């Protein structure tokens, strides 16, 4: 009796407090490097600021200019959408390659690692290799190949109509490899008994794939979807290396535009850059919100 009243406050509340103690370092870091900067961006976006002098309050001016017909913003926004949609091609392509590689023949591990290779090398290197591949005139491999069939020459990265697609194609190469590895691990956990049962019922080919294999790969598909969307929004490196936003700004995406406005050689318009960042933040929040919601629905269904 007396011992329990004399126990310290910490001892009495140990079970409630300890988890928070463990969480504090993480929460502090997360707040310092993620949460607080988000609100700082919001704050800066209401100002005009060159990063050196005083901030000038301009209210919603930056947003009015941005959303009220800034052509660079419109180009960047549509390019972001192209990236999001076309980048998803990595998922079916990754699935196809993983089905193809999911067999036991001599040296299969070597083939798998070769297919996985583009994901291991840096995005900068992938971008460089592809920009050589696309070189205009008769210098690039692409034009030499299509030249055999009497086509071309094309200047993929030099034409505003094709440049973005050229960069997305370069991005798909490593992203497909990533999706492939996700599906390969997923295929390991496919229940052989179900496959056996389906086979007895006469399922094969695409019916087998669609009704038996794919439902079991749903977790892998979900992860592949998430990483591909994130990858599409992180397309900055490819663009910086391959076209630097050009020709005449036709390959900009929002993140690149934000960088140009706020941090590049001719930039340092922090307020406008922050406004772009805020818009990008809300677009991403839409996606992330959707994923959280669908995960929540799944867990509710599983219960």
């Amino acid at each position, binding site marked *: 009796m007396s011992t329990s009243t004399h126990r310290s406050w910490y001892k009495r509340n140990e079970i409630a407090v300890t988890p928070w103690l463990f969480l504090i370092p993480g929460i502090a870091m997360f707040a310092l490097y993620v949460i607080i900067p988000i609100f700082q961006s919001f704050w800066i976006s209401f100002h005009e600021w060159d990063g050196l*002098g005083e901030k000038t309050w301009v209210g919603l001016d930056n947003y009015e200019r941005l959303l009220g017909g800034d*052509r660079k913003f419109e180009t960047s926004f549509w390019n972001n959408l192209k990236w999001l949609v076309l980048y998803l091609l990595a998922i079916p392509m990754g699935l196809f390659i993983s089905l193809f590689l999911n067999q036991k023949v001599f040296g299969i591990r070597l083939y798998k690692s070769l297919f996985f290779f583009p994901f291991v090398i840096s995005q900068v290197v992938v971008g460089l290799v592809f920009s050589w591949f696309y*070189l*205009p005139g008769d210098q690039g491999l692409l034009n030499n190949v299509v030249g055999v069939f009497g086509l071309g020459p094309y200047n993929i990265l030099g034409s505003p109509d094709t440049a973005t697609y050229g960069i997305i194609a370069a991005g798909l190469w490593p992203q497909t490899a990533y999706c492939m590895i996700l599906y390969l691990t997923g295929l390991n956990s496919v229940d052989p008994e179900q496959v056996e049962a389906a086979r007895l019922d006469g399922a094969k080919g695409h019916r087998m794939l669609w009704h038996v294999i794919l439902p079991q790969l749903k977790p892998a598909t979900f992860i592949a979807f998430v990483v591909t969307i994130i990858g599409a929004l992180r397309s900055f490196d490819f663009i910086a290396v391959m076209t630097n936003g*050009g020709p*005449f700004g036709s390959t900009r995406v929002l993140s690149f535009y934000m960088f140009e406005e706020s941090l590049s050689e001719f930039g340092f318009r922090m307020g406008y850059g922050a406004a772009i960042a805020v818009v990008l933040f809300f677009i991403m929040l839409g996606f992330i919100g959707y994923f959280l919601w669908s995960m929540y629905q799944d867990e509710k269904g599983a219960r």
Partner: protein
Amino acid sequence: MNSMLKASVAALALGVASTSAFADGLSGDLRIVSDMSNPAPRAVMEGLVADFGAANPDLNIELEIVDREAWKTQIRNALTANAPDVVNWYAANRMGPYVEAGLFEDVSDMYEDGSLPGLEAVKGAMTLDGAQWGVPYTFYQWGIYYREDIFNELGLTEPTTMEEEMANCQVILASGRKCYAIGTKFLWTAGGWFDYMNMRTNGFDFHMELARGEVAWTDERVVQTMANWAALIEMGAFIDDHQSYSWQEALKFMTDGDATAYLIGNFAVAPMRDAGLDDSQIDFYQFPLIADVPQGEDAPTDTFHIPAQATNKDNARAFLAFVASAEVQTAINAGAALGQLPVNADSSVDADEFLEQGFDMLSTNAQGGVAQFFDRDFPAEMASVGMEGLQEFMVFPENVDDILARLEEARQRIYE
């Protein structure tokens, strides 16, 4: 009153002493951050520090050389936090943001008290808001570098007017070559062409009015500039796919003989020589006349500045005076060093075909005035929007109205 006079005389004497003798007596520290990171400039910078250190044995000099491209964004941090005593930058409008933010030291006193003899001619490029904010250490001419051997083969001579230029170009095109190499991937090379087309069509003063935002981009005089330029583009004078090349990559067209000329700065001579062209194969001429206006020229100037927050400003001033002095200017701009033009009127130009022609052109044949360059004369945001539009114009000249309208919209916003 008397004592004040004495003090100022003493200060003046001290100032003269310290400049005439940047050779000795300095002590303490001097911290220099330089962007001269390419091989030849780097050697020059290290040599400067070694010489200055040898003359001032008690001075502790710390030199940090940073990447030239990276410095364009790093300078902001460097000037605000733990500022060094001397930094590199560029002349004219590019100084604007730092002058306005009070981050560059006003060194007008050095120009007034005679610490910088021979610099009167370049003072203008260092002047903003009626004061001087640094000293230049080198500059270089722009102009048309061409393949002399191909011109000889085709029987062409250096043109002086645009009609001759276009007649030459017709011959060059007929021989299966292109007239001009250019790489516009990083945009600024297109700015060089615009500078010259506009300065030759409308004159230097108009070009500067445009740079200061006093004229509309949709003005018919600008439209005329673009029309003159479009005539060259539409005859196929420029190499194809130039939007995919850097200026260095486009140099290959010239060294291979697929293009005969290149409007570029004197820094391109070294790589041309490295690529195996000798001086009998390359030569230089001034950009030809279009309208009857005094010629303006691009001659970008690189500079040294003292950050306002520097801790050893006296030592820094002595170093600036040292760099700008006639002997040092002669030495560091020689063909074997920077290979550019000295800023000091009392120094001599190295015996180099291109340096001599460039110096001659700028001192006798640039009555219109000397501009810095598109991206240094125009404010940063106008320069970036502008160069992007100019690149588009060089690929799709038919979009000219849309491009000029866009630039005009940007002008109205940026200069307000």
